């Protein structure tokens, strides 16, 4: 084994987790997303600072990026390291958000290996893009996304509560997430 710096070892672990996640290991998927979130947040903070934008909306970029990572994870070539793919998606979403805010968009994004996680999250009572965009979903989809995300119910519990089959809840959840990503894109 070649000697690796801390950042490289961390990224190699994430690559392994994503491979497991794509193989159906949901625990590995959760670990990966939880590990990526603070790093994405720090990268977004830096990007906003560099563009001279206020950092109040950083969590919106983090959420949109996570959504894109999730919905586009089949575009990652599992034989390649994970992070160049993640960095490209993060940069794209950062540029999209800055463009919506009318900021310059020729931003370099740092190599994530050097980035330390940023723990701070904004005040949870503050309205975010995603809450506003949830309003653009159909009632059933919104109900299902909320039930699983905010109210922390399982798919089976949600299915029981809404008197639907688990399969139908899965389909509605997936469609709801795709619809959310599309609504981000349509933001002015």
């Amino acid at each position, binding site marked *: 084994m070649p000697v690796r710096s801390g950042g490289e070892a961390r990224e190699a672990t994430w690559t392994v987790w994503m491979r497991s996640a794509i193989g159906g290991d949901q625990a590995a*998927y959760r670990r990966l997303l939880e590990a990526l979130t603070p790093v994405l947040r720090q990268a977004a903070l830096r990007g906003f600072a560099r563009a001279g934008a206020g950092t109040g909306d950083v969590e919106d970029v983090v959420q949109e990026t*996570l959504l894109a990572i999730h919905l586009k994870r089949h575009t990652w070539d599992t034989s390649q390291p994970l992070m160049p793919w993640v960095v490209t998606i993060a940069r794209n979403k950062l540029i999209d958000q800055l463009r919506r805010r009318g900021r310059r968009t020729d931003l370099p994004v740092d190599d994530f290996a050097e980035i330390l996680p940023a723990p701070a999250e904004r005040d949870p009572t503050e309205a975010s893009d995603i809450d506003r965009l949830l309003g653009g979903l159909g009632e059933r989809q919104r109900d299902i996304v909320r039930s699983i995300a905010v109210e922390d119910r399982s798919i089976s519990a949600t299915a029981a509560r809404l008197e639907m089959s688990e399969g139908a809840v899965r389909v509605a*959840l997936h469609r709801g997430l795709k619809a959310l990503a599309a609504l981000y894109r349509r933001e002015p």
Partner: protein
Amino acid sequence: MRTEDLLGALVADGGVLPTPLGRGLLVALIGGTVATAALFAVAVGPRPDVVEAARTVRFLVKFVECAALAIAAFVLVARLVRPGADRGFGPAALIAVAALLAGAVVVELVVVPSTEWGRRLVGANWMHCLGLIPLLSIAPFAALMLAARHGATTSPHLTGAVVGLVSAGIGAFFYAANCTDDSPLFVATWYTLATALVAGIGAAVGGRVLRW
């Protein structure tokens, strides 16, 4: 919604994996080609002297060029739809296709007297060429654009244009069997113009539909 909450929903949705990207593109390529073949058989058909023509180099080179264009451009599309992937040998392969065409033109200019150049360039079928190549491109264009939407390109216009190149390559491959103009001078002018038209439409469409 807290980011933590969103993660819960993503993990819950993580059990179902979307179709692998490469497979979707391949299905689109094959499906689009079959549809174009069917349209060609029904609505266009080969030229009457196709058997004799198949013994001439000029006729056969058209198919080599069109197939090479479609394949090289397809390889590049398959890279462009993956964020952060390098472009591999796709760009070099496209340049090789252009060089092949340029080489054929040079040979034609050498072996054909200059008094013949104009007649061969204009040919007999340029209006057919400009109409039929885009028409025969429609099926692969639609199928590949849909498959590319499933990907995540960071350059929607470029990817759309290259989807146009693949489709025009397929359309031109079939049209070449109908077309009675075999001179590289004709191919380099009119086939290229038709291809550029489809690529231009691809860039415009890609810019709209390939955002994610």
